[in-house]
C-alpha cells in the first residue's frame, strides 16, 4: 500500500505522535497505594504498529489507558502530537478521545440490542465536527473495510466472536483517529478468528493507521513492527520485530 509510505515519513521526521518521559502511575484506593508503572520513557511515531507485551499484571493496560486519555499519569510528562497533555479538563480529554484516539477491547463492548451499523456509528455521535448526514456513509465504509458488509444490519448478538471484534475494529476506524489502541483484541477468540482480527489490524496499518497493540502472547505481538516488553511496570526491552508474522500465510494454512 503506497499510503503507508507517503504518510509516515513526514510525521516521523519531527514530532512524535506520542512522547512519554519519566511516566509513573500509582493507584490510590482507600489510602492504599499501588505503584504500577515506573519511569516509563517511550516515543511512538505516526504510522507505527507497536505491540506492548508482558505478563498479566505487568501494567500494559494501565499504560494504554494513560496513552489513550482514559486515565492520567501520576508523575511524568505525556506529549501528544507535540503538546503537553497535563492539566486537561475531563471535557478536553473526552474530545481527544472522540477525535484523536480509539479503542478495541478484549471484551468487544458492543451494544447488544443494536445492529453492526448502529454500533459502528456510535462514536460519530460524540464527534464534534463530522456532520450527522455523513455518519451512515462513513460507518458503512468502515464496515466494508473489515469485511462485514453482509452483516451490516445484523444485531451484534447474532455475530460470532471474530465478527464482533471486527465490528469493534470498524467502530475504532470510523472517526479516522490518529491512533488505534487494541487491548488483548484476540483474548476472547479462538485462534482462527484471532488471526482474522489480526489480519484486519494489519490491513489498517498497511493503509497508514497507527496501531498500539497490548498483548501477553508473543505470537500476537509478532504481528507488530516493534515490540515493547513490560515487566513489573518497567520497560524491559524495546525492539524491532525480526520475524514479523503476517495473517495471509497463516489463514491459507488452515
Amino acid at each position, binding site marked *: 500500500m503506497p499510503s503507508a509510505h507517503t504518510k509516515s515519513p513526514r510525521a516521523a521526521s519531527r514530532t512524535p505522535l506520542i512522547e512519554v518521559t519519566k511516566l509513573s502511575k500509582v493507584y490510590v484506593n482507600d489510602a492504599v497505594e499501588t505503584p504500577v508503572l515506573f519511569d516509563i520513557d517511550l516515543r511512538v511515531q505516526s504510522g507505527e504498529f507497536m505491540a506492548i507485551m508482558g505478563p498479566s499484571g505487568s501494567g500494559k493496560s494501565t499504560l494504554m489507558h494513560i496513552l489513550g486519555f482514559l486515565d492520567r499519569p501520576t508523575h511524568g510528562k505525556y506529549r501528544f502530537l507535540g503538546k503537553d497533555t497535563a492539566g486537561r479538563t475531563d471535557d478536553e480529554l473526552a*474530545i481527544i*478521545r472522540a*477525535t484523536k484516539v480509539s479503542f478495541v477491547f478484549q471484551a468487544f*463492548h458492543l451494544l447488544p440490542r443494536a445492529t453492526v451499523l448502529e454500533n459502528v456509528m456510535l*462514536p460519530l455521535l*460524540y464527534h464534534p465536527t463530522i456532520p450527522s448526514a455523513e455518519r451512515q456513509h462513513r460507518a458503512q465504509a468502515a464496515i466494508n473495510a473489515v469485511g462485514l458488509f453482509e452483516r451490516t444490519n445484523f444485531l451484534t448478538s447474532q455475530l460470532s466472536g471474530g465478527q464482533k471484534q471486527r465490528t469493534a475494529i470498524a467502530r475504532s476506524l470510523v472517526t479516522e483517529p490518529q491512533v488505534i489502541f487494541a487491548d488483548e483484541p484476540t483474548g476472547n477468540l479462538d485462534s482462527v478468528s484471532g488471526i482474522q482480527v489480526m489480519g484486519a489490524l494489519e490491513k489498517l496499518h498497511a493503509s497508514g493507521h497507527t496501531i498500539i497493540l497490548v498483548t501477553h502472547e508473543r505470537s500476537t505481538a509478532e504481528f507488530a513492527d516493534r515490540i515493547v516488553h513490560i515487566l513489573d511496570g518497567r520497560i524491559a526491552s524495546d525492539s524491532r520485530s525480526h520475524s514479523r508474522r503476517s495473517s495471509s500465510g497463516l489463514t491459507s494454512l488452515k
Partner: protein
Amino acid sequence: MNTKDIIQSATKSISSNAKRTSLTILGIVIGVASVVLMISTGKSFQGYILDQINSFGSNTMDVIPKGFEKFGGNLESLTIEDYERIKRLSSVERVVPVIIVNRSVHYGREDMTPMVFGATSDIFGNYGMKLASGRLLDESDERGAQRSVVAAYQTALDLFGNRDPIGQRIVIGEESFTVVGTLKSAGSLLLSDLDKPVFIPFATARSMTGQRHVSYITLKTVGDSDIAKRDITELLRTRHRIDNSQDDPDLDDFIARSAEQVTSIISSVTLGLTVFLALIAGISLLVGGIGIMNIMLVTVSERTQEIGLRKALGARPRDILIQFLTEALALTCGGALVGLVLGAGTGWILSRIADRILGEFHFILSPFALVAAICMAVGTGLLFGVYPASKAARLDPIEALRYE
C-alpha cells in the same frame, strides 16, 4: 450528540424494556391523573355553583336585617318605609319587599308548612323563576290584596299530585286562597329550595300579619353593584340613625349583599379547596417520582459498561448526563400524557354522574390543570432524574468498562 440523537437513544432504551417502563411510569400516571382529576373536578364544581348563582341574574342584591347574634341586631330593622325609600334610588330597580308568612298550608286533608312568601310580582323575574301553568301574580292582585297564590314546582306536586292545580282552593293560616299559577322546577339540587315556597301578594301578606317591617328586600342593581350597595347603606344608616364614620359593617343593623359578593366568596373557597386537593394529589406524583429515580438508578447500574464505552468513545460527562436525564424526562412525560387522558376521562365520567344527580353540571378541563400536570411531570423527571444521571455522568470510564 444533537437533540435528535438524544431523543432517539432515549426512546430506544425505553422501548427496549416496555414492561418495566410501563410499571415504572404507573406512579406518574396515577399522580398526574389525580392532579388533573382534582383540579378539573374542582373547577367544574365551582363552575356549577357559579352558574346556579348567575342563573338568578348576576346583578341581584338582597338587603337583610342583621340577626340577633350581633349586638344591637334586630330582625325587624327593615321597615316598609325603608323599602319605599330604597325604591326611589336611581342605582336600583325592581325592588321587591318580602314578608315571610309563618302559617301552615292546607289542601283538603293535606297539611304542609312550605315557606309562604308575600312579595310583589317582580320577585319571579328577580329569581329567574318560570311559569309552568296558569299565570303569575300581577298588579291587580297587589292592588286588591287578592287571595291569589302561585305554588312552586315541588309544593304544587306535593299538594295536587296529577290534578290540575289551577283554580284549586287552599287554606293559608285561616284564609282561603285560589291557586292561579304554578312554577317550573329550578332544575338543580343547589336551587331546590326555590321549588318549595308558595307566593302570595305582598299587600295580602301585610294585611294577614299586620306587620310594619319586611323580612327582607330583594332588588336588581343598575350598573355597578358597589354603587347600589353604597347608596343603600348610606340611606339606611341615615334612616336608622347609625353613626358609622368608620364604615364598620358590625355597627349596621342590616346587610346589603350582592350575588357577586357571594360568587366571589364561593370562588375563593372552592379555589382553596381545589388547590388543597391538588396538592394532596401532587404527593402521589412525588411518590411516582421516587419510582422513577429508583428505576433510573437500576438502569444506570445495569448499563455501567455502556456508559464506560460511551465515555471511551468520546462522550463528555454532560453528554451522559443529558442522555439519562432525557430518559427520565421521557418516562415522566410519557406517564404524564397517559395520566392526563386518564384523569380527564375519569373527571368527565364523574361529571356525567354529577349531571344526573345535581343537574346542569358541566365538565371543565382547565388549561391550568393541563399546564400544571405537564410542569409537575417535567419537574418530577428533572428532580428525580438528576441524581441517577449525574451518578452516571461521573463514572470513571475504566472502572465502568470493567464493571460486571
